[in-house]
């Protein structure tokens, strides 16, 4: 998966209809304001030049009248311009705020935590098919996706500029937002409301892919963790269960059902660690486990003092979680 340099986060490169509406609006505002500004500047310069040329003020009733006409015209043009901006803005707001009603939609629950995103694909008909992941959201292209936004601690705000505007996550409420991606790609999202120490490092990636690939991904995610094979991996699993890990993390399939930290059932299939801060490499993972707060001060993951062998075993086990 291409992440990093390939990941784009730009409100001016829309990848979905909502973002496209907003981008259009942005350009309409930009060009309208720019042309008004240019016109104003042109008049200003003209007035300045004329002022230098005409020493004698030209105040006849005729010029008075033409000045009145000019000012009135300018006023009307300005009013029309402002009104037009208002109308386009309201129209765009209504268009992107409207929730799709067709059945071609997917529901995802996004929960903000200090400082990471939990992404859940609920399945009311068969709850055991529910998929939970973190800091990574897969969506099929050309599908309306309803995001239900909730938070467990502070106010956060989800902003995936390529797909839509911002929407706040407020404790005790469920806010909704619709997104849709028109073309495959990896889009970066970011928390847009100061939520404490690591607000800056609270990112997620949205992977938009063909419906078939999405279904494949979701199927893989719904499987439990594989049974460890090598002795190293078996020991690693024991380290996981015995060390503080199991106090906070869940791995479906083994006796670890804690809910404080991200679900780790498929942790190594994700592009990033620490909410978009680190690339998901074995080395980064080792550093993260050993001393997460050194990398991300304030992070709730505590430093872990593991013996070298223990750490290697643990990494070997985590490597199987793909």
């Amino acid at each position: 998966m291409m992440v990093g340099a390939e990941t784009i986060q730009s409100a001016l490169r829309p990848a979905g209809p909502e973002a496209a509406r907003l981008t259009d609006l942005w350009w309409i505002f930009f060009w309208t304001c720019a042309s008004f500004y240019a016109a104003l500047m042109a008049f200003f310069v003209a007035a300045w030049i004329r002022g230098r040329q005409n020493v004698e003020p030209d105040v006849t009733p005729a010029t008075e009248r033409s000045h009145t006409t000019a000012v009135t015209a300018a006023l009307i043009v300005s009013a029309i311009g402002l009104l037009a901006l208002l109308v386009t803005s309201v129209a765009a707001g209504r268009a992107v705020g409207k929730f799709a009603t067709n059945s071609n939609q997917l529901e995802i629950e996004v929960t903000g935590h200090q400082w990471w995103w939990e992404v859940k694909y609920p399945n009311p008909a068969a709850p055991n098919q529910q998929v939970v992941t973190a800091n990574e959201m897969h969506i099929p292209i050309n599908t309306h996706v309803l995001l239900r936004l909730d938070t467990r601690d502070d106010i956060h705000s989800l902003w995936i500029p390529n797909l839509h505007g911002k929407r706040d996550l407020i404790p005790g409420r469920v806010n909704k937002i619709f997104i849709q991606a028109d073309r495959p790609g990896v889009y970066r999202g970011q928390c847009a409301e100061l939520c404490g120490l690591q607000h800056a490092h609270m990112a997620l990636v949205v992977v938009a892919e063909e419906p078939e690939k999405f279904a494949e991904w979701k199927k893989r995610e719904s499987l439990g963790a594989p049974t460890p094979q090598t002795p190293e991996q078996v020991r690693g699993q024991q380290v996981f269960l015995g060390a503080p890990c199991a106090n906070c993390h869940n791995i479906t399939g083994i006796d670890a059902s804690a809910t404080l930290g991200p679900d780790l059932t498929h942790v190594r299939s994700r592009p990033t660690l620490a909410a978009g801060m680190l690339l998901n490499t074995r080395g980064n993972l080792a550093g993260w486990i050993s001393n997460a707060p050194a990398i991300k001060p304030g992070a709730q993951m505590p430093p872990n003092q593991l013996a070298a062998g223990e750490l290697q075993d643990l990494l070997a086990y985590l490597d199987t979680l793909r």
Partner: protein
Amino acid sequence: MKWSYKPKDINQSAKGIACCDWVNRGCAFANGKIFFNTLDGKTCAVNATNGQEVWVTQVANMARGESITMAPLVVKNKVLVGDSGGEFGVRGALTALDTETGKQIWKAYSIGPDADCLIGPNFKPFYPSDRGKDLGVTSWPPDLWKIGGGTVWGWISYDPQLDLIYYGTANPGPWNPEQRPGDNKWTCGIFARRPDSGEAVWFYQWSPHDEYDYDGVNEQILVDVPINGRMRKVLVRAERNGHVYVLDRTTGEVLSATPFVYITTSKGVDPKTGRLIPNEEKSPGFGRVVREICPASPGAKDWQPSAYSPVTGLLYIPHQNLCQDEEGVQANYIAGTPYVGANVKMYAGPGGHRGEYDAWDPIHARKVWSIRERFPVWSGTLVTAGNVAFYGTMEGWFKAVNATTGDLLWQFKTGSGIVGQPVTFLAPDGKQYISVLSGVGGWSGAIVPGQLDPRDGTAALGFVNAMGDLPMYTTKGGMLYTFGLP
């Protein structure tokens, strides 16, 4: 004293996994032996004549938060034992042990794959929503059935004619319902099983996707009564969710479900699907404080057994009148520690009284009379052929009332609050006696023996908020009172 028996090697740390005080709901006598359970998960068989230990079997696994508080039942040379710990993320189960050896004969889990739940081809629930493969797994988010509760800590009944045992399953865990979408089968329901093999015959879920800790473990009264002019074999159950249910005990069909307290959490029972209709407005969840949840978590009536009098045809229900506020928080599963995810504060329901003692007509589904009590009526009750009903209050009064009218006939102040069950027996001297244990405690009374601090309303799962004044009325104790009938 004839003999005394003290179980060996009781693990004191079991006190840390007993959600609602250190309680034991009784013992059973059969085949010359006395059977009882210990909090740390053992079942003991003791010779009734000399007090010698016959066998001790470890049934529950404390490391996983399992404990045992229920009274065993002996059916056809099997001791039936269920576990407790729905607030600790355990997996509920009912175990049948051989009365002679203590060996496990079968074990029926309340949740999980059909094979574990002993659900086979003979399982014929009345309602379609209970039919399907592995519902004990598919009605839960991945893996959560392994820690989903559904314990069996209440009362088991046996109908020798139909050769069925009936028992309820407790609440799903954690309390915070947002963490476990789905129906959460087979929690908060009632199983009918064959005692020989343990195989399930039918199931009915009182509270699908329970949101308020309405354990379905209350006692079932098995009676044969005319319903709509036809004699029916029914099972009457005053349920925690606030309804008195009358079920056909051969099939599990709901014949009637009538509210007997003030209810805000549900809007009745759908007669077609048998499903409780939840009130979405009162659904607790993350970050929200939901007010006026009635009945509160201990339900309209908790485990305290009611009594049925064939003389009056009435059911005598000791129960509470409590509502609560609740806030959902994140429940985090760490084996052996609580797994609740809710802050609760209880208080008296409409009327301001916290307890009630009702006489209920199950055939016409109506309340006949009712006595209000200051505190929850947390004791069991007893009704005699002489048309007298007995019950105890948490202040310590042991009361006798006229079973037909509810008029108080006699009362006696015992040394402590009463949360035990009165019994009557004919002694060898030919006289009839009534006995009751006095000694306050349990979930409702924990504030007294546990010396809890009433400044924290959430203490003892929120019950302390409603019971802050109890220490002014009673003190801890533990005494058996026996009264001779004149």
